[in-house]
């Protein structure tokens, strides 16, 4: 290998965390000007690997070569100075600060001991224009959408004139067409000569962008492949270590009576005139852009926020939901989008998490906790969803994303009066293996006659699992497609069309 071919090369890198080897002699080669995908299940060591490259973690063993020269980063600063910038999975923005402040954090333009705000604002404007961003440098980051925050992060990476940009699951919180925007940006960067490392669970990302892909599994390097030469199945096998025969095990279910209906529900600023219905045994997908109001509708159904108007019926009876407890009592169970912040109490044991919603039911006299009953019950449901855990007292934080999601499912199953399950992005950030298991559970639930609402931005999942698909755009339901008529094109069209026409009206 010559100096010119690889801009970045890592050899035999080992990183040890208390109790675990997070990386075990992994290697990696990045060519100049290429987009290189890095794939693997959660916990395979991708994120740790990225942090070694960016100097956040110091590796115990191994060598890193930048443009052929060996480098040792003592901290993130060194990596930044060397031209490596990263956009992390969870946007690492400063929510209380402006876009400009965020972009230039750590490398402000300083002249004569003074930060040059004017110059920085102008430069930020320029960067945002280059990315076709629709927000201002003076906007506060906390008020922006996740996609916009991600764009700011990319602008930040660009502002350092980085030679290597690392994108850690940038599309995880983006919808299809937002992803498309991102693809364009990445293409543009590559054309400008920037080398890019791209981590993603989505195969579409990889096919669309990358020329080569490196796979990690269980903290080890498995292999590097040319994207156009490897099949989907082989790649999955490389990642999971076994073959997955049927990704979307959609069972044949006799769809029953209507059990759930939303009528003309509105909440100012979030959604308007939303009507949705669900039948027993039916999986109803809801998709659309992030910010289209999908999650917000379901939160209002479950009493987390208050809708301004509209009615909700469960099994023909109108519900009066004021707080989450009310909807749960009625039999509606929500699996929230963010496991770590909404779904679980990470510092708690699994068992306690599972029984939290039903603790009153289990308690003696409704007051005193019945630990024996609780433990038995949580054991039963955790085993039912096949959680990888030793005891029910393991803290939820010790599990991987997929297993955490299983705990959330167990928590839902434990609610014995459940009639309707609402799953908000059930496979977000979940690796391939666990994804299949979650789909299987979903199928089982449908078979048992529960109604299921699945909010998702992932097209294959929506197409693979739903009986019907509602598409939302800008707070309104723009269409409802049967399984037979749902295609990627139609859904995409519905999720954008309405917005465009609305915007036109607003201009007039």
């Amino acid at each position, binding site marked *: 290998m010559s100096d010119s071919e690889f801009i970045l090369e890592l050899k035999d890198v080992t990183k040890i965390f208390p109790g*675990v*080897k997070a990386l075990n002699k992994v290697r990696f080669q990045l060519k100049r000007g290429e987009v290189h995908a890095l794939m693997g299940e959660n916990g395979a060591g991708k994120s740790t690997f990225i942090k070694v490259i960016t100097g956040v973690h110091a590796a115990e063993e191994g060598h890193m070569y930048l443009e052929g020269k060996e480098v040792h980063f003592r901290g993130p600063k060194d990596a930044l100075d060397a031209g490596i910038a990263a956009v992390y999975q969870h946007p690492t923005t400063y929510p209380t600060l402006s876009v400009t402040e965020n972009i230039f954090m750590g490398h402000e333009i300083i002249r004569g001991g003074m930060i040059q705000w004017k110059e920085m604002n102008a430069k930020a404007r320029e960067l945002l224009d280059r990315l076709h961003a629709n927000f201002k440098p003076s906007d506060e980051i906390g008020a922006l959408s996740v996609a916009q925050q991600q764009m700011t992060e990319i602008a930040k990476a660009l502002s350092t004139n980085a030679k290597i940009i690392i994108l850690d699951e940038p599309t995880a919180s983006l919808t299809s067409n937002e992803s498309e925007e991102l693809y364009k940006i990445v293409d543009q960067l590559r054309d400008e000569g920037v080398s890019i490392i791209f981590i993603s669970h989505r195969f579409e990302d990889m096919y669309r962008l990358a020329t080569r892909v490196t796979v990690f599994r269980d903290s080890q390097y498995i292999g590097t492949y040319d994207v156009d030469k490897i099949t989907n199945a082989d790649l999955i096998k490389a990642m999971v270590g076994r073959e997955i025969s049927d990704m979307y095990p959609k069972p044949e279910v006799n769809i029953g009576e209507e059990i759930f209906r939303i009528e003309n529900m509105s909440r100012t600023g979030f959604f308007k005139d939303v009507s949705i219905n669900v039948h027993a045994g039916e999986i109803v997908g809801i998709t659309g852009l992030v910010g289209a109001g999908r999650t917000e509708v379901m939160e209002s159904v479950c009493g987390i926020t208050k809708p301004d108007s509209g009615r909700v019926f469960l099994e023909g009876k109108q519900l009066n939901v004021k*707080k*989450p*407890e009310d909807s749960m009592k009625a039999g509606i169970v929500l699996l929230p989008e963010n496991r770590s912040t909404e779904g679980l109490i990470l510092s708690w044991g699994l068992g306690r998490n599972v029984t939290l919603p039903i603790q009153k039911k289990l*308690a003696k006299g409704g007051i005193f906790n019945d630990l024996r009953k609780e433990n*038995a019950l949580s054991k039963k449901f*955790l085993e039912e969803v096949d*959680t990888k855990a030793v005891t029910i007292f393991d803290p939820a934080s010790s599990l991987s994303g997929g297993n955490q999601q299983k705990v959330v499912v167990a928590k839902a199953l434990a609610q014995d009066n459940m009639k309707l399950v609402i799953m908000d992005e059930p496979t977000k950030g979940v690796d391939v293996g666990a994804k299949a298991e979650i789909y299987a559970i979903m199928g089982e639930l449908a078979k048992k006659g529960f109604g299921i609402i699945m909010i998702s931005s992932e097209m294959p999942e929506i197409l693979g699992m739903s009986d019907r698909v509602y598409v939302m755009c800008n707070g309104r339901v723009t269409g409802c497609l049967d399984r037979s008529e749902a295609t990627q094109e139609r859904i995409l069209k519905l999720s954008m069309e309405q917005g465009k026409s609305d915007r036109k009206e607003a201009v007039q």
Partner: protein
Amino acid sequence: MAGKSGRSIKAEEKLTAKKLLFTWEGALILLFIAVNIFNMSISQSYTFANVLREMPKYLAEMFMVLPMAYILVLGDIDISVGSIVCLTGTLTCYISNAGAPFPVVILGCLGTGLLCGAFNGFITTSFPELPSMITTLGSQIIFRGIAEISLGGGGSVSYTNTKQIMPLSTKLGKTVPVIILVVMLAAVIFTVVLQRTTFGRSLYAIGSNKVSAFYAGVDVKRCRFIAYVLMGFMAGMCGLFLTAYTYGANTTTGQGFEMEVIAMCVFGGIASTGGKGTLVGGIIAGLIITLLRIALGQANVNSQMILVIVGALLIIAVLIPGIKGRFDELKKLRAAA
């Protein structure tokens, strides 16, 4: 169900004596014994009877340790309690001096505390955007301010009908002060509620992750409100008993109590960040600090020096988990390598 691998998850927790000892509470019990030995060595007057006699003033504060633990477990803080003690003490005197019968006096006192707590609860739950430190800072100033206004120019009020309130400060069998029994009863109730009931579990849930708890159907607003009301009620209790021992109240009554009470809780392992610690720890810690102060006082150690010692102990106590964490990490690193 799907993906059944037949994997079994253990649901039994083995509680050994060793494990118990290595909890923070276990350490506190050891420290409790050590402190008692130390106390006996520095003061000849450190006898059971003397300690029992000196306890009541500290025990009045112990009333507030109990609900403060709830508030801290919630991840909140209430720095207005000292002022509530002042206000309830003041009003108690005025109510009695106006000729009210004793039950009315007690009701008035506890009711005032309850109202103050409800005020705090209302403000904090209506404006969840505001940290409780700020809202209770405001009410701290207001409650004491109201007491100051009602005390007027003289700045103090006496409980003229001392015979009436005497029952609260008497000693059963001439040795056991009534207040000890009341504190013990309250401690048992508060401990059971926090550690064994759904309400207690809800408090921990909110303190650990407010959003998750809310999504899981915990009524966050109600739980927080109840905790503040209990806090106010027990501050009223403290005010009542303090009045029984001082036959009056003035503008400095209860000054600085909030910090002492919080210190006891934190020393007992109840983190100010919420979701951690048990009331058992808080109570033992409260006793340790109390006994230490009594013994140091008997040894005629400078009163300011006693506060320095308490402050230093507090800092050492909160540093230990961090130091221990570092040790554990190092050990695990070595094991992995």
